[in-house]
């Protein structure tokens, strides 16, 4: 187990919420002090615009900003120019569909995705398919709800042009066997887009080894600030993509009736970017690296085993994922609406998610309106889970009184 007591000292939110059991990490994670400090340092000491100014402060700001990009690149083993910033992972994934997808997809082409996806990984392709009269196909999840190579083999064919899949399910905590899938996908001529939002802070990612074409994640799920998303794109593919947005900062030479644009990644980033956020994310990734992605994964797995062991003794509980790979448990109390349970937990400062978790397709597959989701991270300990269990017991004795 990680030294949770020491880690919590790095997260100022715990000083203001001493009794909280924060178990909604799949929605967003808390922010360490170093990230807040470094963002504040930018605004306090050299908070000016980047790329344009020739004065000292602008140079400092530009240096800090671009150091952020280098850190992102090295974190996932990409090159500097392969990292493009957006406002979140959703926007980054939309960008791929709106640029590469618009330019390359034709009527009758096929796109493969899964019912396990976050809406952000499906909807850009679903809408593109409607516009292009392309065919959207869902690979069949196995009995426990996992994406498998066998299921991909069943539907991939010469017409497949895009495979868009999540790296980690934000409902079940399953890790997609992405490397094995991509080996299979490479037998066909198609694009692989990976939604790594739920994976970025929980397992090591190496885009070269993975051999994906695009991979997106959001900063806020990786200890960084909100309002920032990252898209990795393979150099050769990014080179062939035209800008989607035009205006400030992305131009090379502007003439009255046409213009030329900067090199990648800058040609894709229009206007003044989220400077403080990019700086903050760099330090967030440093923090994750210091703890170690493998240690994080182990910590989460240990907490998950402990939680599942305790939860299985509770009456009326339905668990939807009995063997998650990472720290996410999806569950319900039989016959009780998850919002009613969440309100009970809330009064004991146990914070879980209740809803469809931005993944309505999998909720529909399970034939439930919504579920509860407890998700763990580096600052959670067994005491948090004990609190969850105690609060659940209270809810159970209330909603099933008289039994």
């Amino acid at each position, binding site marked *: 187990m990680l030294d949770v007591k020491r880690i919590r000292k790095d997260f100022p939110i715990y000083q203001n919420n001493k009794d909280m059991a924060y178990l909604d990490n799949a929605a967003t994670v808390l922010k360490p002090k170093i990230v807040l400090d470094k963002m504040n340092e930018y605004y306090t000491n050299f908070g000016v615009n980047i790329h344009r100014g020739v004065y000292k402060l602008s140079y400092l700001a530009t240096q800090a900003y671009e150091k952020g990009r280098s850190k992102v690149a090295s974190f996932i083993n990409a090159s500097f120019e392969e990292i493009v910033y957006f406002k979140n992972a959703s926007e980054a994934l939309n960008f791929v569909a709106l640029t590469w997808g618009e330019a390359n997809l034709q009527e009758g082409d096929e796109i493969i995705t899964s019912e396990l996806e976050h809406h952000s990984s499906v909807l850009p392709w679903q809408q593109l398919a409607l516009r292009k009269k392309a065919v959207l196909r869902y690979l069949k999840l196995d009995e426990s709800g996992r994406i498998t190579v066998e299921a991909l083999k069943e539907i991939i064919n010469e017409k497949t042009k895009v495979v868009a899949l999540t790296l980690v399910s934000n409902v079940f905590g399953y890790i997609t066997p992405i490397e094995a899938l991509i080996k299979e996908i490479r037998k066909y001529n198609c694009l692989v887009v990976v939604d790594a939002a739920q994976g970025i802070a929980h397992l090591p990612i190496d885009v070269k080894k993975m051999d994906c074409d695009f991979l997106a994640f959001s900063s806020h799920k990786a200890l960084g600030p909100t309002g920032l998303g990252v898209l990795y794109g393979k150099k050769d593919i990014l080179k062939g993509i035209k800008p989607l947005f035009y205006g400030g900062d992305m131009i090379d030479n502007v003439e009255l009736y046409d213009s030329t644009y900067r090199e990648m990644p800058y040609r894709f980033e229009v206007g003044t970017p989220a400077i403080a956020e990019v700086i903050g994310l760099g330090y967030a990734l440093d923090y994750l690296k210091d703890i170690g992605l493998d240690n994080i994964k182990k910590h989460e797995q240990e907490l998950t085993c402990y939680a599942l062991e305790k939860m299985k003794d509770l009456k009326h509980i339905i668990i939807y994922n009995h063997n998650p790979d990472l720290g996410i448990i999806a569950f319900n109390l039989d016959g009780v609406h998850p*919002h009613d349970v969440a309100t*009970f937990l809330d009064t004991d400062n146990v914070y879980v998610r209740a809803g469809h978790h931005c993944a309505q397709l999998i909720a529909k597959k399970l034939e439930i309106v919504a579920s509860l989701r407890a998700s763990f991270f580096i600052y959670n300990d067994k005491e948090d889970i004990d609190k969850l269990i105690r609060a659940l017991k209270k809810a159970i004795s209330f909603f099933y009184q008289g039994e």
Partner: protein
Amino acid sequence: MDNLRNLYQAVIMDHYHNPHNKGLKGYPKMHLKNPACGDDITIEAEVQDGVIKHINHQGNGCSICCASASMLCLLMEGKSVSFAKKEISKFYDLVQGKDGDYDSLGDANSLAGVAKFPARIRCATISWKALEMVLEGDVDEEKEI
């Protein structure tokens, strides 16, 4: 725990488990959905000579949402439109914790505890909003709130 007991009083759970006027009969209706949480309620009402002759509900949601719809129907059946509009606006005040005399709301008075749970106010008000819209002549197959 007191806040919770207040929120989930027996009368609320009773309406949840044994709802009044559940099931649509084909009167003018409004279907409201809260996509964030999945609450999904349709209220239908037939108004004759300024009086709500029939009112029914149908849908899915948490206990607060469903119980509130049941209480709404129980309260409004046979009442005048002007009474209904007054009580709807009182109910909005009630769930926001404003002081007032709420006895005329009947069982719905028991939803006062929602005020302590701001995230749940919309659960309580969705059916009332739907009736308000029907009475304004705003009938629709489906709307988001």
